[in-house]
């Protein structure tokens, strides 16, 4: 009996892990994939002034822009010193401010580069500059990516936030095909990966960890190997807090996640608070310090979204994972 029981329990455990880990078949580990790890990055947003009055001065007033710029640089150094990762995602209006106000005096502090180019080039595995677009006010992702390109940041294909839920309101399936900009010169842009599936007003965000290729609007959480546009899950996307990440790491350590797979989490920060909220940079530092032991054990890797995408393709053989909080 004990032997049989042990056999049963192992089988049950496998079934349990399989169910918990969603779509995985569990054979990746057997084929020599790297160990299961959590890949995490901070993601920051700036917004259009109109939709974000408290942050508007960052993009409408030069002085405030420059104060925020200095704080962005401090934050970048902080993230780099502590071995973190940061996806700096930008809407169109901030990029216009960069073009207007990153003059000779400003770029003297950033090796002669404007701030987004400096961020994108200083340590590409650690800091990425992605497009963020609500696709309002006559702009879409192609236009924002084009603006970035004009500032010296080549497109990395990351979609930094989009509506996926409810299915009837989704805007992402059209991003599988090349997207034409809404304004001159009507640039064409191809998304490489989605991040930040959301719902109107964040009332029912389709949160998950892992990288997978959403099948269709109704079956967003189902991997479809025939699709080429993957989604990188942000897990709980905590705002300037690490509790969701801690929970995910706990699941990893207690073998509640399928082995040999790649798990993902992001932590949101509001760019405009970097200079106006004295607690924000220390909070980022504290999060990086809190998880330093997990980095040391190899359970956690700080990596930007483009790096996550590459790792998923090259090291994890595109093994899909979808686990919901």
């Amino acid at each position: 009996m004990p032997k049989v029981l042990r056999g049963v329990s192992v089988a049950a455990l496998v079934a349990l892990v399989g169910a918990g880990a969603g779509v995985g078949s569990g054979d990746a580990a057997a084929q020599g994939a790297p160990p299961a790890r959590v890949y995490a990055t901070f993601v920051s947003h700036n917004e259009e002034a109109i939709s974000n009055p408290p942050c508007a001065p960052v993009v409408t007033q030069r002085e405030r822009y420059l104060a925020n710029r200095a704080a962005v640089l401090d934050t970048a150094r902080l993230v780099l010193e502590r071995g973190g990762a940061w996806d700096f995602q930008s809407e169109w209006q901030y990029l216009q401010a960069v073009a207007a106000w990153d003059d000779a005096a400003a770029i003297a502090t950033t090796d002669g580069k404007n701030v987004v180019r400096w961020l994108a080039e200083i340590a590409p595995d650690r800091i990425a500059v992605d497009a963020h677009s609500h696709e309002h006010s006559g702009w879409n992702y192609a236009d924002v990516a084009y603006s970035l390109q004009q500032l010296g940041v080549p497109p990395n294909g990351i979609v930094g936030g989009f509506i996926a839920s409810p299915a009837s309101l989704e805007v992402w399936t059209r991003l599988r095909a090349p997207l034409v900009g809404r304004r001159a010169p009507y640039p064409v842009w191809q998304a490489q990966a989605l991040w930040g599936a959301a719902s109107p007003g964040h009332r029912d965000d389709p949160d998950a960890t892992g990288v997978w290729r959403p099948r269709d609007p109704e079956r967003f959480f189902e991997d479809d190997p025939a699709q080429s546009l993957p989604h990188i899950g942000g897990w709980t996307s905590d705002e300037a807090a690490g509790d969701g990440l801690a929970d995910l790491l706990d699941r990893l350590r207690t073998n509640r996640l399928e082995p040999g797979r790649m798990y993902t989490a992001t932590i949101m920060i509001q760019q405009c608070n970097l200079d106006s909220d004295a607690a924000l940079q220390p909070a980022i530092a504290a999060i990086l310090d809190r998880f330093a032991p997990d980095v040391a054990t190899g359970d956690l890797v700080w990596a930007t979204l483009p790096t996550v995408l590459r790792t998923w393709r090259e090291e994890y053989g595109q093994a899909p994972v979808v686990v919901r909080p």
Partner: protein
Amino acid sequence: MTTRRRFLATSLGALAAASWPARRAHAAADTSLLFSLNVQDFAWPDLSAQLVFRALDLHEALGIPVDISLTTTQSDLFWRDFPELFERLRVSTLATVCYHVRPPAPYHALCDWLDVAAMSAGDQQALVRRYETHGLDLVSGQPSAADGGYAALVDRLGYAPPCVGIACDAAVQAAADTVFHDLGATFGVVHGRAANLGERRNSLYVRPEHVDLKLFEHVGADPAALIEAAAAEAPAVRGGRAPFVVGVKMHDNDFFAQDSAWLTVYASGNGRRPPWDLSRRSPLLDAAAQAAMWSLYEGAVTHAARNAARLPATSCRTLLAAV
């Protein structure tokens, strides 16, 4: 655990926290008020401007957002003759300038004096674009040579008015929506059905609204009771989905004139074809009637301010952060 969702899914007012750092500490509220003031009275421009000043003072004193929707004509009038008012509108963070189309634009519902409905989609779009990038001649109904329309308003404000009221006949709506979307608009105003956040009409989102409270029809009533009744009704509206929005609507002319200028000139026995006679002006309300209308409005905004934690007020700019 402090998740993004827990931070944000507290109320429509807090929807803005999707991008705003200043999160409001509202208790969970699924219903919000959206005050909108449609400004269009070209016959009494001084009174129209005065009313907008007064409304801004009220909303800013009480911290209640308001959408102030201009026609092309009122945009031109304020820009040219009331620059101080225009600047206040432009920089206000509580007021959001929006836009609406009125006759004699031939693509306005029931005003198709040019037979726009019979044109090809491409011609319709070209026509709407010509109108929305130029001024409007109120006598001939033709676009003027000057810059104007929605496009000029975008330039003057430095932002694209997020909500547009463009009620067209069915055959023309798609062309108008396409042009406004191209020019930067996000939401189209719709009435008469549950309009849920995130739903679309052609390329525009619909501006969410579940109850259209025409406050101006209720002079003498208790504004608090009107708002509470509408707020109670909103979640029960057929086809509605949270977050629920009660539109609280007024027009500038409601406060001082018996009829709107556009009704007086373009609808009331003045023929439906150009040229139109701009000498016709609606009589003004008497002082008591004007005071009663203002008192109703002031009461409504005051009620919103007193109950903002439970029944927050939203606006088109706040909605912009939610989609």
